């Protein structure tokens, strides 16, 4: 970087760069501990793509479950802040179908666990399955209301 360009950078730019570097580093570290294959031959499970969206009044969890049998989908709260989604596939899938011949194994289930970052009322959970996407809507637990004067 040239001296002139360096001088033009404000303190805020430098802080912003440091924050970004720190975020990237923490992301890399987290990934080093959590990254694993998206399949498990021992349990015959494939981990589906899954996402969590926290809105003002609800948490929406979705999972992409292609080739799954809608009647077999199960959504279960496995701990205070963790939701598990399971589904059976309509047909078994083998590594060969992904163009991989050096691994052996077949998969019959989807399974994933997802962290729910805020308190929700699991009893009022609603689910919908459309176009192979499971959508789970969980109303957020409300705290107390502050009177505005």
């Amino acid at each position: 970087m040239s001296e002139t360009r360096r001088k033009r950078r404000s303190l805020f730019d430098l802080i912003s760069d440091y924050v970004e570097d720190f975020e990237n580093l923490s992301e890399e570290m987290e990934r080093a501990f959590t990254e694993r294959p998206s399949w498990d031959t021992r349990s015959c499970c494939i981990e589906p793509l899954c996402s969590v969206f926290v809105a003002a009044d609800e948490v929406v969890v979705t999972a992409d479950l292609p080739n799954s049998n809608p009647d077999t989908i199960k959504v279960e709260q496995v701990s205070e802040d963790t939701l598990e989604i399971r589904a059976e596939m309509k047909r078994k899938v083998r590594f060969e179908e992904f163009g991989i011949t050096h691994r052996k194994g077949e998969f019959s289930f989807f399974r994933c666990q997802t962290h729910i970052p805020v308190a929700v009322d699991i009893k009022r959970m609603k689910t919908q399955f459309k176009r192979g996407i499971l959508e789970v809507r969980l109303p957020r637990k409300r705290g107390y209301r502050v009177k505005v004067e």
Partner: protein
Amino acid sequence: MVFLSEPVRIVERKPVPNNATMLNGLPDVGLVGLIATSHMITQLKMGEVAYVDSELLPPVVVLHEGLPYAPLRIFGNGGLVATLSEAAIPAKAVQPIMKKLVEWGQSKRVKLMVSMGGMPVQDRQDIAEPKVYGAASNQALLKTLSDKGIEILSGGFMVGPYALIMRYCAERNVPAIALLAQSFYNYPDPEAAAATIREFGKITGMQVDVSKLVESGEDIRLKARDVMKRTEQELNRMKKTQEYDLPLYV
């Protein structure tokens, strides 16, 4: 960063035709462009003509029937060349690679650069037929899109590889359009890919059958999970969600 060699180079393995239409199928939301372009390459029996080599890309090769290939390759057949990346492109590499692809396209005097991709929408699962929006590098092409019944993206932000391709093409007067179908953000979307191929046919007159793509949609979604996951990580680094932001026009 100081590069001892060129940061990005395009290595041609076969003669590349001039005045071709250049299609870009790069990993982005819903992997729409990647799925669409991959389908077109198979349907039109396009062969590899070049590949992209860069020290900014991870040390990855893809194996096809035991042989190693670069993940980012260019295919060709007659008047069409297509760029396809089988692996997510790191956010830090997007800018130099897109610049190089546009420079290369210009050197081959491409008559039209077409980027097919997705435009994430909420409640995508409620949409039976994704609508395709268009963007163009010049006024005449905007009119062409409108004349073909494609709604124009008139405002807002574009983020990611296609945003840069459009910008560099506009700077260099390379005719370029983007066809963006309503899609999932982080789930592979073959239906959206089929919608962009249909619109591509309307613009260029090059019709490609999408029935196999639609039929095998569930299998594609299953196979594309890992590429989608890594692509999402890179999209987050590019601040892709800025596309949801409302622009400030005073």
